[in-house]
């Protein structure tokens, strides 16, 4: 298997010989703890995760339908200074994305100013004409964003993609920390790790701030899940539980005269805010897919009538589309009048003939992604692809260039990770979560670190054998 050459890879710990400051105590811990004790702790961690029931269903695999995502004990550590820059950049980016969403569903100034091609927005399947002209609380659309970051050097961060629909993974950020605290209380006593456990409170405050215009008083908030068979069901239950709100399925809700109610043992009770983890397409069979059994007929009309807030709003997919991604730095300049703090990965828009020609010439060096794909499916990693895979992708690119973008193969940073024969560097990414309420933008210091467990692999998605790590932001 081709490997990314070690010389070009940035190891965030500097393991084993050149340890960077934020990892000093991790290094001491790894040196001082006998291997058999660490092995014991790894088994304990697995038992804890099974017990909690924090599982992830993978659709394409047979067998164990409730699979654990592998958890690695060695934390990923960021110094406060490193985080501070990231955090400002994340807030900025989330504001710009929301301003863009408000704009495309209202006056489309950015298109009229010629900064984003009209075709890209209006002919995009993620654009929802149903949302046009609707004013939302605080003009916010993507209330919960998971922004995927990668790192290539001490000061080089790139945004890989913006997840503005129903990003998941935050339960792992929280449970990974819980498990680490239980297994290694001493380690936390010696370090000053910023806590993340208040995330559910921040989320609830965000949801409260988004009460619809016609909400009679304190809003009733529920979490809408597709149900027990959804791969992220555990997370839905976990978040509802942590926030103390009801976890509902489509059949628990009913819309009457543009007001949404939940069916309770005491009759119908009004619902004002729905944190929905059901995709747009399935949300309301009267407006979107008519065959959806997961949604609630009339939900969209309750939303339009100002009686209900849906978080995230319908139609946010237009902001995290991989072709629209190219223009996010421009959004920051256009809406906020600021220079973007976070870099985009330089991206080739295959719909442009000159760029397509370049991509076809350099296919074995590039990562090619389907514009509408997610979860690491429909993706080509050029340097790791076989001759046949390259040929197949080349054909698809020529046939449907609009459906693809291409990026250079970044040499993602690594963090030491437990593997079968000891400790070895493995590539990681980072998904911090940004909460955009009508009142303020909130970011909890942390995120989900995903790690590609296969040697040399750059694909961190849990559906493709990725694992997770606890992510530490050190306080000064």
């Amino acid at each position, binding site marked *: 298997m081709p490997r990314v050459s070690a010389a070009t890879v940035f190891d965030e710990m500097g393991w084993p010989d050149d340890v960077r400051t934020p990892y000093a105590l991790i290094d001491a811990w790894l040196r001082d703890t006998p291997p058999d004790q660490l092995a014991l702790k790894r088994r304990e961690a697995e038992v804890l995760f*099974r017990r909690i029931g924090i599982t992830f269903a993978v659709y394409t695999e047979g067998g164990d339908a409730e699979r654990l995502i592998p958890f690695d004990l060695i934390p990923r550590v960021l110094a406060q200074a490193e985080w501070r820059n990231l955090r400002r950049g994340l807030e900025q980016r989330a504001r710009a994305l929301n301003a863009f969403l408000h704009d495309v569903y209202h006056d489309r100034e950015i298109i009229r100013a010629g900064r984003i091609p009209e075709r890209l927005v209006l002919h995009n399947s993620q654009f929802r004409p149903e949302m046009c002209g609707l004013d939302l609380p605080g003009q916010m659309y993507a209330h919960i964003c998971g922004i995927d970051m990668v790192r290539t050097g001490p000061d080089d961060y790139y945004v890989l993609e913006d997840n503005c629909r129903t990003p998941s993974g935050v339960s792992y950020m929280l449970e990974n920390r819980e498990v680490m605290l239980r297994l290694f209380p001493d380690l936390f006593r010696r370090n000053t790790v910023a806590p993340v456990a208040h995330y559910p409170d921040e989320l609830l405050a965000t949801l409260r701030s988004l009460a619809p215009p016609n909400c009679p008083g304190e809003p009733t908030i529920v979490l809408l899940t597709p149900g*027990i068979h959804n791969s992220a069901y555990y997370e839905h239950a976990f978040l509802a539980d942590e926030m103390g709100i009801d976890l*509902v399925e489509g059949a628990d809700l009913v819309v009457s005269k543009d007001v949404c109610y939940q069916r309770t*043992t005491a009759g119908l009770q009004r619902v004002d805010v729905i944190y929905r983890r059901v995709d747009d397409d399935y949300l309301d069979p009267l407006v979107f897919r008519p065959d959806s059994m997961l949604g609630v007929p009339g939900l969209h009309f309750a939303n339009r009538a100002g009686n209900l807030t849906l978080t995230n709003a319908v139609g946010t997919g237009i902001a995290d589309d991989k072709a629209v991604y190219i223009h996010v730095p421009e959004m920051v300049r256009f809406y906020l009048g600021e220079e973007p703090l976070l870099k985009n990965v330089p991206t080739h828009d295959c719909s442009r003939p000159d760029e397509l020609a370049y991509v076809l010439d350099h296919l074995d060096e590039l990562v090619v992604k389907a514009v509408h794909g997610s979860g690491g499916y429909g993706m080509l990693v050029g340097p790791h692809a076989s001759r046949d895979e390259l040929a197949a992708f080349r054909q698809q690119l020529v046939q449907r260039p609009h459906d693809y973008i291409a990026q250079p193969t970044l040499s993602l940073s690594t963090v030491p990770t437990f593997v079968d024969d000891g400790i070895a560097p493995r590539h990681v990414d980072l998904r911090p979560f940004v909460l955009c309420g009508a009142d303020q933008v909130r970011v909890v210091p942390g995120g989900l670190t995903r790690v590609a467990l296969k040697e040399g692999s750059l694909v961190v998605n849990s559906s493709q054998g990725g694992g997770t790590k606890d992510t530490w932001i050190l306080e000064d």
Partner: protein
Amino acid sequence: MLARTAESLFWLARYMERADYVARLLQVAGHMSAVRVDSDRRSEWESAIIASGGSVPYFAKHATIDEVSVIDFLAFDRDNPSSIANCIDTARRNARAVRTALTTTMWDAVQGAWQELPRFRDAPKNADLLNDFLEWVRVRVDLFHGVCSNSMLRRDSFYFLRTGQFLERADNIARLLDVKYHVRLPQVSDVGGVIDYYQWLAILRVVGARRAYRVLYKGRVEPAQVAELLITRSVFPRSLAFCYQQITHHLDAIEDQDPARVAEAKRCAHSLYADLRYASVDRIIENGLHEFLTDVIERTEALGTQIAVGHLF
């Protein structure tokens, strides 16, 4: 609370209770067939199938009654919705669907049971493992009910859970007592004889009432007194009267904003409770124990339906 949540809690408790009951049936059948001196050991296994309410699915699969088939059917058979393994599975599925309504310790109790279950997969083929398994089921179910008591807020969710538990128990007790009607004695002259004695003793063992019986009746096992203990004595937690005392208590505690809608369920529960409390066992036996128990089973089933209707399940 969400109607769906109430429904899932109700069935969660029912399936946990049923797992315990089926384990008790198997334990006693095993014990009694071992101590029986006469040749007809088969009847113990037949009783277990009948008392579990599983005659129809059993005979759809097996032509005859024998120890191995019955144990397999009641313990692990996936085709039997009331096998212990299926009960635990269904309970866990209900628990998972309403995780947010469960306390952490409740989830641990259900999830822990479900996780350990595969460890006993070979129990039908291994007598020692089977004993461990049945004992384990009972401990697990006790743990579950215990953590419910000790961790849940006394609100509707708790009341629905307990209603489910005692409705299931009432149904089980009625079926257990009715077994005597289905498993005939070889000859009429055997009434009051050794076989008859052992059959009544087995019933007491299933509900763990031997000591209670001794304390309350201080004598030899008499059929009328066994029936009285299991039907009318509300001091005994596995009597029909006790179950209905609990059902009426918890049903009344559920908050209702529309009394008319839940009136039928309450009427069903309270009238049956009155019948059980003031029942005369002599008169029941005179009019037919089987007829009486059939009536209890039917009214219990109707009550389950009325609760679903009244509370929007």
